[in-house]
């Protein structure tokens, strides 16, 4: 299903307004190229998760439109659209009555893959996210730590090899050391897989490490869209506030 355009996802004046008139997102204009990783950065409640849900049609925009592979989401069959988009949700949301193996296998099973191929794929993915299949495949989610569960969530989203990935704070529950290791692994994975990714975080360091470009959201609007270098140069107070967090941590550590 390849086509000529180099744009994977585009927001064209997209907005989302609640029935009571409150705007959650206002006038979003963004294009995300194939193979690009866009990081959505912003404070809690700024509209990051909501932006992701417009892409896989868990929500429909009330103004403007959102295009995926040059077709408005409202014209996509939502099921077909979502099967092309891997989604790692913020709360992880593993199925508690499925084993780890069954959780990762959900989409391939829905797509009707044969069992041997599913099994092979599950082992491959568990290896990829650093979980030993022999130890973890047969466990239930409640038998895993929070960070391990998050990794299963990533494996589950990758299972059917979708061209687009939406990741909503996938590393939130990891300790800083593991988190850094995973981020490095993820970066090489990113290069190898060449997928289009939209990655949500409120950690500036993570954003700088993984982003091709960063979009900073505030109160449902894009305050700044640019490469990490543009970010450091900006004078916008919200940008400055975020960047100073990064500097602040380094300075506290460097102080005598």
């Amino acid at each position: 299903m390849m086509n000529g355009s180099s744009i994977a996802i585009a927001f064209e004046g997209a907005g989302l307004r609640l029935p009571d008139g409150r705007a959650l997102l206002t006038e979003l204009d963004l294009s995300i190229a194939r193979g690009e990783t866009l990081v959505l950065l912003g404070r809690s409640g700024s509209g990051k998760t909501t932006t992701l849900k417009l892409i896989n049609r868990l929500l429909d925009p009330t103004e403007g439109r959102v295009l995926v592979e040059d077709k408005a989401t409202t014209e996509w069959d939502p099921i077909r659209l979502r099967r092309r988009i891997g989604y790692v949700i913020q709360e992880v949301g593993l199925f508690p009555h499925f084993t780890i193996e069954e959780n990762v296998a959900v989409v391939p099973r829905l797509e009707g893959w044969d069992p041997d191929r599913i099994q092979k794929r599950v082992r491959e993915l568990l290896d990829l996210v650093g979980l030993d299949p022999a130890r973890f495949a047969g466990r239930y989610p409640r038998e895993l730590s929070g960070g391990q569960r998050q990794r299963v969530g990533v494996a589950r989203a990758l299972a059917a090899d979708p061209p687009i990935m939406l990741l909503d704070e996938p590393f939130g529950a990891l300790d800083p050391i593991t988190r850094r290791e995973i981020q490095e692994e993820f970066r090489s994975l990113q290069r190898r897989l060449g997928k289009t990714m939209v990655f949500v975080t409120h950690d500036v360091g993570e954003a700088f490490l993984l982003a091709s470009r960063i979009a900073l959201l505030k109160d449902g609007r894009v305050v700044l869209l640019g490469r990490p270098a543009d970010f450091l140069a900006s004078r916008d107070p919200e940008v400055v506030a975020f960047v100073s967090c990064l500097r602040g941590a380094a300075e506290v550590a460097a102080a005598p």
Partner: protein
Amino acid sequence: MNLWQFLSAHRAEVAQLTLEHLFLVAVSTGIAVLIGVPLGIALTRRPALSRPILGFANIMQTVPSLALFGFLIPLNIYLFHVRIIGGIGARTAIAALALYSLLPIIRNTFTGINGVDPAIREAGRGLGMTDRQLLLQVEVPLALGVIVAGIRVATVIAVGTATIAAAIDAGGLGRYIFRGLRMNDNTLILAGAVPAALLALAADFLLGAVEHSFGRGARRLNRRHAYVVLSAVVAAAAVIAVFTFHSGAARRIAVGSKDFTEQVILGEIVAQTIEARTGLPVERRFDLGGNLAHDALVAGEIDTYVEYTGTALTAILKLPPLSDAHEVFRRVKSEYAARFHVAWLEPFGFNNTFAILVRGDDAKKLGLKTISDVAKYAPKWRAGFGQDFVSRPDGYEGFVRAYGLKFAAVREMDLSLTYRALADGQVDVIAGNSTDGLIARLGLVQLEDDRRYFPPYDAVPVIREDTLRRAPEVGTALNALAGAISVDEMRRMNFAVDGDKRAPRDVAEEFLRRKKTAAGG
């Protein structure tokens, strides 16, 4: 006889009634599950409907069971030529029990599915599950513990409620309970209640274990297993439905009775008379509670039963009481023909009315023959009356006015206790039932109603007109019983069953044999 002796002596019957009971509970709960679970699921998809539907199920639970039976019996609802609702027997009992079971099942399905963590639901939708896939693979398996808890509550309620099914001849352990209440026999009541309680505990325990296994390590519902289980349930339900609902291909004469001793004896007399004189097969549908015998007759579920003229006039036709026996008989006869297409045959010859009773030695000593004779002694006498007599329109108040009586004291107590109280000298006059077996046994004397205050309650077989057209010999056979049963004979037969614990069937047979030899010479 104590409970254990009774249970071991009637092992086979207890097992039979327990099986009938289980059958009622299993089929009704099964139907409630097949309706309630999909309905509960539908409500999670259309929450706007949840208020009216849960409200309806809630109200169903508060409808008294006899009222619900009375409403269901005249219905005629067919599904593929099989009558699924209406009439007396297991069919209607199952429909009523299923209605009672719906609420906990719908409610738990609804709340169980709504209680699934929204993040899990969102993950499923985000991965591209269709609504169906999300429901069957995620929501239902996760809600299964709560759904099974609802089924468990429904089952335990059904085990208890099914005892009332005996009121419409649907069988089960309620038969013992009703028979025991009627005969004032605690052993019989316990023989029904204890096994029913054990059944409830067993059902609670078993379903509790199932609930636990689903609630804890909730596993995925294997699709193949789910289909196997579902088809097994549906197949079983279909087989059972055909057996229950498609009964009685060959048309028999169905004889009914109300749910007290005298009625069961009269039902047996009627049934045995038809069998002996016409050779037609007879089906006995006895022990119908309240006015259900009348409902069943009008609905065509039974062909005949024995009614009392006064009851028909006031309780069924809702007409004011009349005291002239001939007048009452004429009224009910013409009203029944016009309203119900039901005919009154010839009266049996006894009147089951209120009987004003005194001790035999008082009657002899004071020369009491009529109620008017009591007026002189009343100011020094204590009277004992049942609650029913004190409250009904043709009872206490009109009675003392009609005879100008004023008692020293009036004690209100349970009717069955008044006889004993009179015999023991704790009261001096009571209002009993004229055919009660205890009257003769305790040496009591009935005083004549010389001012004709009490309305007549003559026992008369009533029969559907279409039955008479189809089998006129039934009418002829029953008219042979005209005037054949005196008050005294009825009292003796009642005592043979209540006092001597003999089977109504044997007592009726003996009576008919005696009549025959008397008639045949």
